[in-house]
């Protein structure tokens, strides 16, 4: 249930993983914050999140919220990207039975959901396991 303005505001993060990095302590915040959660500093520089990481935990959503009913069952997990920033993300491009904590993951740009019957199509990041060589 988001408005187009609210959706538009999130585009830099959802499409491009734009974050900010504390000039004082180096902590990366995603989404960008006005106050560093690590040291309290208010000085930042723009950065982008790495697109690879590790799966810390996951679930398979079998009873979905109304906007995701057509997608269920689908997997959601927490991925710690290289450098330590974490995101909650759908897990895609794999069998639901094959998901394992500790798996290497990569970030993909995907369709997330449609806003109602005549609303905008919402895009963003999802994560997929990196194929083991």
């Amino acid at each position, binding site marked *: 249930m988001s408005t187009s303005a609210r959706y538009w505001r999130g585009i830099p993060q959802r499409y491009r993983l734009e974050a900010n990095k504390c000039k004082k302590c180096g902590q990366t915040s995603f989404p960008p914050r006005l106050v560093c959660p690590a040291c309290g500093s208010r000085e930042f520089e723009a950065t982008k999140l790495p697109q690879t990481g590790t799966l810390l935990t996951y679930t398979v959503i079998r*009873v979905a919220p109304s906007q995701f009913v057509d997608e269920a069952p689908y997997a959601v997990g927490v991925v710690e990207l290289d450098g330590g920033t974490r995101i909650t993300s759908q897990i895609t491009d794999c069998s639901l039975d094959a998901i394992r904590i500790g798996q290497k993951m990569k970030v993909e740009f995907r369709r997330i959901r449609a806003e109602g019957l005549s609303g905008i199509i919402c895009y963003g990041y999802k994560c997929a396991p990196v194929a083991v060589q």
Partner: protein
Amino acid sequence: MRDVAIIGVGMNKWGELWEKSMRDIYVEAALLAIEDAGVDHIDSMYVGCMTSGLFVGQEHLGSLMADYLNVTPIPATRIESACASGGVALRHGFIEVGSGMSDIVLVGGVEKMCDVGGGEATYALSTAADQEYECYQGVTFPGLYALMAHRHMHLHGTTQEQLAHVAVKNHDHGSMNPLAQYPFKVTLEQVLSSVMIADPLRILDCSPITDGAAAAILCPLEMAKKFTKKPVVQIIGSGQATDTIALHTREDMSWLGATARAAEVAYKMAGVGPDDLDLVEAHDCFTIAEICVIEALGLVDRGQGGKAAESGLTALGGKIPVNVSGGLKAKGHPVGATGVAQVVEMVEQLRGEVGERQVEGARVGLTQTMGGTGGSTAVHIFRRV
């Protein structure tokens, strides 16, 4: 601060209350508490409620409930802290009486959840999580607790069977509580074969969607005997704390930092520790939640919560009974009412009034309720005077 007592509590049967409006559910509980306390007026009121706007399209509950309880023009304040709303409301009543600002304060909680369909209820509850960076990805509340559960299993070896034992225990307790939404027992096999909601959580790992309310009357301890001939229960500790709203930003996603912090503050104020408690009412919105909560409260060592229900430690008759009311699991979870209903159980337990689920000789107890995945928590400690 003045010492503060609870002199009356009230709660009606919880469940799918189709025939009753939110205001009537609340007023019924409030009237029971007023009658139980023996007071002829109240000076101020707090109403804990998470999201009546999304569930029944109604905000401004301070005015609505004061109006229908016929107590206008007293001050009445709605308190929102997601599923911890009722516990945080109690804290504000405690502060108002303790400060000397008011003498008799009614603390109530209410949620009318069954008027909307399942998808809408799932959405309404999900607003307690980070809408932009958790819910946008399609995660639900059971989903977020499932993420905690898988992390706990990964770090500490907790098993699905251990989760199921929490449900079995709390339904055993709830079968003795006639006000519970689901006052029946379940078996381990039933829990483990129930439908999967968000792996590893099954439907019987989840608390239900419930209509319900609860209320309590607070007054200065020194005035308590003027109103009631029943044993007086004193609030001896209160702690409230916050944590990050998004689960993924917490260093250990299976650890409830806000609950640990609120408990530390409450224990210090009360001058008691985990070993002094006779019973605990904890926020078991999901089976994994009770496991994480008892760790954060210091009832068991960190990582050892999974074994507690399985070993009988937290059952009625065990070393530290947890959720003898049936918990959110069996009693129901009308989110804004939950924190106040824990107080109803605590006061009746400490007064020795609950019959077959009575914790024998209970003198000191603790309630803990939390919002979202633990982003806010209220902990209170009580003693029979």
